[in-house]
């Protein structure tokens, strides 16, 4: 018996060790875990229950399903955060935190149940600066203005409250969403930004008129605190107040780090969000278009936090794009390029329906990388909260979502109108409410993403405890049980509110409680910088976050494995600072502003590597041509490929001439750059029919003068045999005049690439010309060519002799030549769209043989767009840098989940039908929306008569196995841009750093920019000519990667490099005149930009 119990004990210990061990393992992997506590245990029974009837329904009130807010804060200063819930149609509830997740409903005695008016958001703030948090409650709905007056519950201590809104001037009768208290004028007291929304639908004809007028109840307001009384100074302060603003979130942050609090306001529908930059003089200016290049369309909740620990606040806005294929297919309608163009024209900016993460790159530059980060699709989303849930040092993301009726279901638009008709035929009265309540209701689960660093978020919603499908609205985080991790409070629709206990296996932490000066006792607006093991943790004291809610005032930092903070900097609202050193973790630290010292900090300024200077005043690529009108199922437009750039000293005066390629409608030009000015060079003439895809200066006739080869490309309205697709050769007449050669081989290819090489070993420069696309017949494989030079600049087409597969090599976008096998003859390396890098080995000047397998590993098929060679690791051979489509789109690709492009004339009507198939959510599905597919093929119209039938369709539902078997099939296995290390026996792929994956790369320039003796890289790209659904991919600003000479690269920010170019960079040149070195950037639709290297 004794023995037995001993065994039992030791085995218990053993199990304990095992658990500890597995936890440690787990902690590195997937450690976040929340547990929803039963209402019985917590005592929280609040339920935001809606009652749909003739009076109260979505038809009468547009925001019927938006849900209610949450406010969290320690109302009685007992060290425990209490909770306030706002109920739309039910009473508001206040719960006193008794500790250990026990709560007491004190609503009645506190007197804060509110009124019988549609209730929206709530915030806790010490409005009167007495050291006790008060509660501001917002009202809306269709009632009278009087009924909507917001309440301000001033804390009398001991859970007694009195509504003093009227007295303080804050009983505003607007249709309010949320009140945000902050000190906008740095005068030591709290002012109020009141976020409002309109309750009527605005006819889009009225947009322009409505925009001009301040709406008394729909427009947002700014109230200034004048010694305890609040004054509406909206107009004076430059706050926009039109009825177009359907405000759903307001978040405060010092976005530009100038010591004045700025604001982000998200707007539903057409009105763009506002990014109010605080001018420091009592006014704000909306600068959203200066900083963000595209934004969420139907913006809802939002958060601002430093998600990559670089000390800069990043901005995240929510929208409604679902994650899975089925809901996407039900949601996506036809793409309307004219409507989009009109939206831009009327000043509504680039708006797309998905969550947007605007990564703060400093100096006012932001890169939108929500898709690369993996957090762009969270369905109809309400609250976004960044906080470190597992204390690993990285802020994770929680998103609430769900809309009670599937409003945006396309079948509803297209087919529910039949209801009226059918009722009429049946001679029955139509009941619109019935129609609405017959709409489907799809509950969805909340999202939880673990921040894995490097702006990579992993969706762990299910394992983290958020698998339950429901409708969630406002939310807040708070360490409710004071155990050193943050718990969650969620307000659900038609369901009891959720209290989620954090049960993660977490790392170390530090919590801060700030005591400000009177007037702003909670030090709202303070900034925290904690440094630990070389890491920065940045937080701002602004509790209003997410949606209609405000969170804890206790600041929480996860430290990961570090057990202490090396130094802690608190920048108080009055800019005084407290600096603390060596603070041990896992404690709650109280810091008082009275201990702070005024500090003037010199901003760290390092001189950027380049600075902008004057460029040629020439736009050669302005064009509205829309290739999707010709081939609707392509993803990007092949017409917009320029400008190409090339340089040579044509007239031998010691200064370089620069060729700037034209595109259809605008002929290319050559400029001379002399004494800092740009002059059109007279010795060249081209025609406006051409689109100059490739330009190469080279001495082709051996007279020591540079000649010019131009490869004509484009898509436009070119026929596949269009004269305008002819490539051209211009020979230098010796005096710098370029003469077009009529006897240059005549072939019609939309050229994508060209390379000079000696193909036949006669020491004369020959040409490889790569075809990119057949206009109107994408993605059929175009011809590529070998043109042999007789030494006098006379070329003959010897493709049949030299190239394998009769020159059908793929959709070639780039070609370089080097002697790979060191046999003394030039070999070729090619990349292209939907193909793997190819190596063509020169067979002793007789022909080329495809030996790709010997040089590149498998699974490298990509959407390659550029290939550049340079010795990056200093070992004497040429390495490769290859530009791909990148990771910042809805597309994903891997060897296991390839993107496949099937094409054939499936419906036998004479046109190629390119059908893309890719991984969406859980499996492969056709990429096109139903409208796109039906527009391409008549036969699909009877196959998929509604959106529902198409929403689950796989490619095998579209086509028979035979049809697919006979179709051309191309694949993409990787979308990542790469550095290929030349190992002497082949190329070893290395992914370029993460920021280089945020945009498609069309141009690569190896150059030692920082003059450390090691080659660096400049990467130019972006893609604005995409399907509307894809949207602008514009995260690239001219990215500089510094090289260490060993093949490792480190990205620079725009403020470090000096490069901040907005637009689609298509080409780059390094131009040297005398001792000065310049960078020229060819940008589509824009003038070239020129930078001088320091």
């Amino acid at each position, binding site marked *: 018996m004794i023995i037995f119990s001993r065994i039992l004990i030791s085995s218990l210990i053993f199990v304990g060790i095992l658990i500890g061990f597995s936890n440690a393992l787990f902690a590195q992997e997937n450690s976040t875990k929340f547990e929803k506590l039963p209402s019985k245990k917590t005592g929280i029974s609040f339920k935001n229950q809606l009652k749909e009837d003739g009076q109260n329904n*979505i*038809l009468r009130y*547009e925001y019927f399903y938006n849900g209610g807010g949450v406010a969290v804060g320690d109302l009685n200063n007992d060290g425990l955060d209490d909770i306030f819930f706002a109920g739309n149609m039910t009473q508001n509830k206040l719960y006193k935190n008794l500790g250990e997740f026990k709560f007491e409903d004190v609503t009645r005695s506190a007197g804060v149940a509110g009124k019988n008016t549609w209730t929206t958001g709530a915030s806790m703030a010490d409005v009167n600066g007495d050291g006790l948090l008060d509660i501001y409650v917002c009202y809306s709905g269709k009632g009278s203005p009087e009924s909507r007056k917001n309440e301000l519950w001033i804390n009398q201590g001991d859970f007694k409250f009195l509504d003093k809104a009227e007295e303080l001037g804050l009983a505003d009768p607007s249709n309010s969403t949320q009140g945000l208290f902050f000190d906008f004028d740095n005068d030591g007291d709290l002012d109020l930004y009141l976020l409002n929304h309109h309750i009527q*639908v605005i*006819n*889009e*004809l*009225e947009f*322009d*008129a409505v925009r001009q007028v301040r709406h008394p109840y729909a427009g947002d307001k700014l109230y200034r605190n004048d010694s305890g009384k609040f004054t509406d100074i909206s107009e004076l302060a430059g706050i926009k107040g039109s009825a177009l603003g359907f405000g759903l979130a307001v978040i405060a942050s010092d976005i530009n780090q100038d010591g004045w609090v700025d604001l982000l306001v998200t707007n539903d*529908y057409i009105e763009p969000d506002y990014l109010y930059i605080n001018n420091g003089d009592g006014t704000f200016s909306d600068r959203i278009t200066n900083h963000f290049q595209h934004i969420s369309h*139907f913006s809802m909740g939002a958060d601002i936090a430093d998600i990559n620990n670089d000390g800069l606040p990043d901005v995240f806005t929510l929208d409604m794009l679902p994650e899975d294929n089925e809901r996407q297919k039900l949601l996506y309608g*036809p793409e*309307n390029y*004219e*409507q989009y163009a*009109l939206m831009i024209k009327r000043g509504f900016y680039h708006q797309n329906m998905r969550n947007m993460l605007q990564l703060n790159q400093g100096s006012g530059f932001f890169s939108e990388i929500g898709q690369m980060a993996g957090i762009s699709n969270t369905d109809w989303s309400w609250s976004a909260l960044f906080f470190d849930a597992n204390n690993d040092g990285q802020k994770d993301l929680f998103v609430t979502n769900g809309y009670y009726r599937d*409003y*945006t279901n396309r079948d*509803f*638009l*297209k*087919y*529910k*109108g*039949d209801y*009226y*008709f059918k009722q*009429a*035929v049946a001679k029955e009265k139509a009941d619109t409410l019935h*129609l*609405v309540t017959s709409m489907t209701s799809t509950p969805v689960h909340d999202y939880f993403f673990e921040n894995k660093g490097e702006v990579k978020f992993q969706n762990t919603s299910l394992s983290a405890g958020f698998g339950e499908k429901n409708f969630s609205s406002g939310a807040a985080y708070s360490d409710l049980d004071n155990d050193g991790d943050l718990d969650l409070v969620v307000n659900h629709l038609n369901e009891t509110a959720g209290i989620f206990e954090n049960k993660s296996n977490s790392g170390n932490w530090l919590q801060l409680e700030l005591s400000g000066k009177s007037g702003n006792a909670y030090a709202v607006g303070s900034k925290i910088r904690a440094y630990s093991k070389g890491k920065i943790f940045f937080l701002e004291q602004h509790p209003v976050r997410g949606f209609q809610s405000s969170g804890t005032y206790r600041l929480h930092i996860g430290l990961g494995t570090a057990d202490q903070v090396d130094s802690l900097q608190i920048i108080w609202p009055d800019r005084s600072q407290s600096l603390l050193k060596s603070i041990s973790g896992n404690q709650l630290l109280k810091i008082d502003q009275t201990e702070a010292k005024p500090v003037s900090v010199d901003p760290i300024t390092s001189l950027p590597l380049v600075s902008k200077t004057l460029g040629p005043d020439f736009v050669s690529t302005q064009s*509205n*041509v*829309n290739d*999707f*009108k*010709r081939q*609707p199922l392509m993803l990007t437009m092949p017409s917009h490929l320029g400008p190409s750039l090339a340089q040579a000293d044509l007239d031998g005066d010691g200064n370089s001439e620069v060729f700037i390629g034209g595109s259809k409608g605008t002929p290319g030009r050559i400029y001379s750059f002399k004494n800092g000015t740009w002059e059109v060079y007279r010795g060249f003439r081209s025609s406006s029919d051409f689109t100059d895809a490739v330009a190469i200066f080279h001495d082709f006739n051996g007279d020591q003068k540079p000649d010019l080869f131009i490869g004509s490309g484009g898509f436009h309205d070119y026929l596949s045999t269009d004269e305008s697709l002819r490539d051209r050769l211009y020979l230098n007449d010796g005096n710098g005049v370029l003469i077009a050669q009529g006897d240059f081989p005549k072939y019609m290819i939309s050229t994508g690439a060209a390379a000079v090489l000696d193909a036949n070993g006669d020491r004369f420069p020959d040409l490889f010309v790569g075809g990119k696309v057949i206009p109107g017949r994408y993605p059929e494989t175009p011809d590529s060519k070998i043109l042999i030079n007789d030494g006098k600049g006379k070329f003959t087409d010897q493709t049949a002799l030299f190239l394998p597969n009769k020159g059908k090599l793929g959709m070639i976008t780039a070609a370089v030549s080097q002697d790979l096998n060191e046999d003394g003859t030039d070999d070729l390396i090619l990349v292209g769209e939907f193909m793997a890098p190819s190596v063509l080995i020169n067979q002793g000047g007789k022909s080329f043989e495809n030996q790709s397998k010997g040089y590149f590993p498998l699974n490298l098929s990509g959407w390659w767009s550029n290939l550049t060679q340079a010795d990056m690791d200093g070992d004497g051979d040429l390495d490769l840098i290859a530009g791909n489509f990148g990771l910042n789109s809805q597309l994903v690709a891997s060897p296991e989940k390839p993107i496949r492009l099937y094409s054939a004339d499936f*419906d*036998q*009507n*004479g*046109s190629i039908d390119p059908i893309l198939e890719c991984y969406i959510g859980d499996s492969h599905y056709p990429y096109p929306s139903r409208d796109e597919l039906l*527009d*391409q*093929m*008549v*036969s699909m*119209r*009877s196959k998929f*008569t509604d959106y529902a039938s198409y929403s689950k369709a796989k490619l095998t539902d579209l086509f028979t196995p035979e049809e697919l078997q006979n179709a051309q099939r191309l694949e993409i296995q990787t979308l990542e841009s790469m550095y290929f290390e030349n190992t002497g026996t082949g190329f070893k792929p290395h992914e370029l750093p993460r920021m280089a994956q945020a945009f498609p790369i069309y141009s690569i320039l190896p150059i030692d920019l920082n003059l450390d003796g090691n080659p660096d890289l400049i990467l130019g790209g972006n893609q604005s000519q995409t399907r509307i659904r894809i949207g602008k991919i514009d995260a690239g600003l001219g990215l500089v990667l510094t090289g260490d000479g060993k093949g490792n690269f480190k990205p620079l920010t725009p403020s470090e490099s000096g490069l901040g170019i907005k637009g689609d960079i298509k080409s780059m040149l390094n131009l040297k005149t005398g001792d000065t070195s310049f960078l020229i950037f060819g940008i589509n639709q824009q003038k070239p930009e020129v930078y001088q290297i320091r």
Partner: protein
Amino acid sequence: MKKLISLLLTSFFLPLGAIHLHGQNREIDWSKIYSEQLFHITEVMVTDVASPPVAARIYAYTNLAAYRVLQVANVKFDHGDFLSFSQINKQVADLSLEPIQSPEFAAIFALFLVGEKVMPSGYLLKEKQAAWQEWGLKNKVITKKNLEQHLAFAKAVADQVLGMAKSDGYIQLTALNRYSPKEGEGFWYPTPPAYMAAVEPEWKTMRTFFLENLEEYKPAPMADFDLSQGSPFQIQLQEVYDKGKNLSEEEQLIANFWDCNPFKVEFSGHMAIGVKKISPGGHWIGITGISAQKVGLTFSETTYIHALVAMTLHDSFVSCWKAKYETNRIRPETVINEKLDPTWKPLLQTPPFPEYTSGHSVISSASAEILTGYFGENFGFVDSSEVYFGLPERAFDSFSQASDEAAISRLYGGIHFRDAIENGVAQGKKIGKSIWQKLEE
């Protein structure tokens, strides 16, 4: 027992056979039944949101199938065979099928079979086909024994008609370019509120039935885009604007009566509902049925006039759509919003295609010409085509009165300029007259 009776009855009726339709089954109101069955085609089109030109094409081939069944069954008509001078005449091969008891039954069935194939949601007609068989058996129009023969007959004819439809250019349309707005002033741009894409910009490439050279039916030139005071365009622009602000109740009623917009989008925030109506062609098919019923046409004559009107509608649409995408003229709403009044809204929702000429004017005038030729001048009728869409009945003294009203309704509706209406009417009359004249010859 029941079976026996029905067998007896069937054999009793058999000798009355097929060849002469006149006077057969007097208790059956064939013209009414034709309209009722044809309405099932309309219902599917409404569900599918068939655009006006597409709807006309569907009416043409479905009614043609019914007509061809009667032709193949050697039924005689009061007027000449319009296929003899049509561009599909070569495809009208003799089918030499065994005679059937009820060409009427087979005609309707063939109409359904063609409808099933030429409409995306044609599968919805399966149910109607079953109901029709049941009706045929119940009313002793056919027997269980000869049902299959009827179905086979209908299918043979339907297949022939579908063969014609397959070669008319429809499936080639998706291989052609979509509309890109033209650079410059005065060109069509999608219109509020839904900014729907241009409908069938390449419809001019469709094969017509009767019109051999579309150039002959080109409308008179439109007023050039010119906003200077007193220019022909400016005067017309002002007229649309002023009219829109001062519409009498009667004019509003007229505009709505002839709206015939297959898909009007109503927005309410994120929610949008498409409100549906029959197309302009559907309206004239309705009038054809009403007229046929009014004079109690036989089945064969009902079929004849429906097929002729439907095929005329198709040709009219092709002619009109050619003009539309050659002129690419801007809609009044766009100019007015840009130049005169940013908040002006037409009474009707502007349909998604260029303005010149007015489709309703062209197709109504052409239809009226045919109907007047067939039923005579001053043929009064009560138009109840729009009752299902909440609009009252409307009485007309003649087809041309109705078509003129349909034409001018587009001005009241604020979606067309006067020259698009007047020149459209002339265009339509020319089309209608030329077809009717060929019949008379």
